[in-house]
């Protein structure tokens, strides 16, 4: 018998500390069927979408019978501790393939099709490969025919996704202008302050010169969107993604019309549900880039698990305003 814990909730609310519970359950590893695999949590991050899901109104959370509640979390790395499937070995590093897995649990019994093997990654990389680098990878691949010297501009320039976008773009010879909140401009490559960018006089030519600005990425939906659209070259695309920030975007209709600007959305969760194998391909490509040393993980804060998963998750959520948090059980 394995004693396990999960961070659970039964109703949606913004008052996380009162609705999140630590639920204990047991898993009988001797009763695994032929296809079943027992996995143990090594690390699980806090993502804004996890919080939005608990608050309600994001995506439907499923109910897990063994705790009779929803389990929080959509990303995490596990190791296999028992497997009856010959293709999966004990100690393999795995991540869930689909969103809504409920990763804030110490143990899970799954089938091979629920998993992506991520052997060969460092634990720090594996813990966060599923969402931020995958989002960045797929965002960049929204445009297939990148040319050397093309440009991307993005707000929230020092977010995790943005930093992965910057790295992945560089591999394609694409340059990135990163718009960063005035208080945050630190050592981001090609960083520009929000106050400079939102100024009426701002001219993208100062940075991009004759390069084509083909993609603008918006994850905060604030007043930077106006000049993101203005800065795009003809036939450029504004992509909005992410669940944080403002509730609407606003841009000049004449610019859209005359420069044939498209605005659309990107949502990794939706892509993954529609095409799980596409997500697997994305993760495999990222593993290769990590292993070749072409991609570096972006630093985050680790919260050490001390026996109660709910306490660790709540501590990490509270720290989230200072940057990305990952609960480590090892």
């Amino acid at each position, binding site marked *: 018998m394995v004693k396990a814990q999960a961070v659970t909730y039964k109703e949606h609310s913004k008052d996380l500390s009162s609705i999140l519970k630590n639920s204990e359950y047991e898993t009988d590893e001797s009763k695994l069927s032929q296809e079943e695999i027992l996995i143990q949590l090594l690390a699980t991050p806090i993502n804004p979408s996890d919080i939005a899901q608990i608050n309600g109104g994001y995506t439907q959370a499923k109910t897990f019978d063994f705790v009779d509640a929803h389990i929080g979390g959509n990303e995490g790395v596990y190791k296999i501790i028992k497997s009856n499937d010959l293709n999966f070995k004990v100690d393999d590093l795995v991540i869930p393939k689909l969103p809504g897995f409920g990763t804030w649990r110490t143990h899970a019994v799954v089938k091979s099709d629920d998993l992506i093997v991520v052997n060969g990654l460092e634990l720090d990389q594996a813990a966060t490969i599923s969402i931020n680098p995958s989002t960045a990878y797929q965002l960049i691949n929204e445009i297939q025919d990148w040319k050397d010297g093309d440009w991307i501009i993005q707000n929230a320039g020092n977010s995790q996704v943005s930093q992965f976008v910057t790295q992945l773009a560089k591999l394609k010879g694409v340059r990135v202008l990163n718009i960063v909140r005035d208080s945050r401009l630190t050592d981001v490559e090609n960083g520009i302050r929000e106050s400079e960018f939102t100024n009426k006089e701002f001219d993208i030519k100062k940075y991009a010169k004759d390069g084509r600005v083909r993609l603008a990425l918006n994850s905060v939906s604030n007043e930077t969107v106006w000049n993101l659209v203005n800065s795009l070259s003809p036939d450029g695309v504004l992509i*909005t993604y992410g669940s944080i920030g403002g509730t609407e975007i606003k841009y000049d209709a004449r610019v859209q019309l005359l420069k044939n600007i498209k605005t659309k959305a990107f949502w990794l969760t939706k892509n993954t549900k529609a095409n799980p194998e596409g997500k697997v391909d994305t993760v495999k490509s990222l593993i290769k880039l990590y292993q070749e040393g072409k991609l570096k993980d972006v630093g985050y804060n680790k919260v050490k698990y001390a026996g109660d998963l709910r306490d660790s998750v709540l501590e990490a959520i509270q720290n989230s305003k200072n940057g990305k948090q990952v609960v480590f059980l090892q």
Partner: protein
Amino acid sequence: MITAHAVVYQSHGDPKDVLFTQKYQIDDENLKENQVLVKTLASPINPSDINQIQGVYPSKPDFTDKFDSSKKLAPTGNEGLFQVLKIGSNVENFKVGDWVIPKSVNSGTWQTHQLGTANDFIKLPNPKQSEEKGKTGLSLNQGATISVNPPTAYLMLTHYVKFNKNDYFIQNGGNSAVGKYASQFGKLLGINSISVIRDRPNLQETIDKLENLGATHVITEDQNESKEFGSTIKNWKGTGKIKLALNCVGGKSSTGIARKLDPNGLMLTYGGMSMKPVTIPTSLHIFKNFTSTGFWVTELLKNNPELKIKTLNQIVEYYENEQLKDSPSNEVKFDESQDLASLYIKGIEDSKNGKQLIVY
């Protein structure tokens, strides 16, 4: 020799300050083998013509010395209907008396004549040719205003989205020229429509007119912005989906029509330079996979001449079958004793009361 009159300008500015009439000679006795000489039958005043003269429109004609060898002048007008006067010895696709329209923009239609090549024009049936087929001939207004508004409406409905039975499009500016064409094409193509119009004193009268034209439903901007009204629209559409939104207004109106789209919907923004900013709720983008893009008929057709011909042929057919009503213009007659530029300057002033068409 023919003495042609052309409305031209030497530098951008307010039309009443910069427009003047330039008279120039066309040698109609010595046409080159591929040349076509046409006389103008009618040309309208469009908002983009005015923006071009002001210098605020991105697409502009070149300044040329063809009107006067001593200075560079720019022609005016982009839409118009001509009749072929003479053709060069090698011209096969046109004959004298044919009706033609310019193939591309910026050629200058606010002038009495144009000397071009066979490649500069697209043929329309003249009334005699239509009657020979047992059809109704095009009017001057239909021919002279066929290049911009009807193709804009037709292509927005046919070029992007596949509609099934019971599906809808929604549009603001429902009482505009393009809006009225869109409602009519919707009916002809079997696509239901919801047209949003501004509240006005004679609201019911306008609604009746639009419904008579082919609009399935007509609603006001207040209803467009109202959450409660959503249930009425749900009842209307039943199993159908609202797949396309046409925006020429911007602001809250664009938010309203965008919100009514079903998942994976598309909003096309088209129209004038006076449009308000587009505002889109991010939740629409992310959770309903909404896409918004611009539509500029000139740009689309510039690179796709076959699509232009195909579209114009379809519109001509609707006109000849009397299935389509043109958006009327106020027709102003030009005769040789008048100053052509003054006539267009007055037309520009009168444009606030509706579209002006100068008839030659």
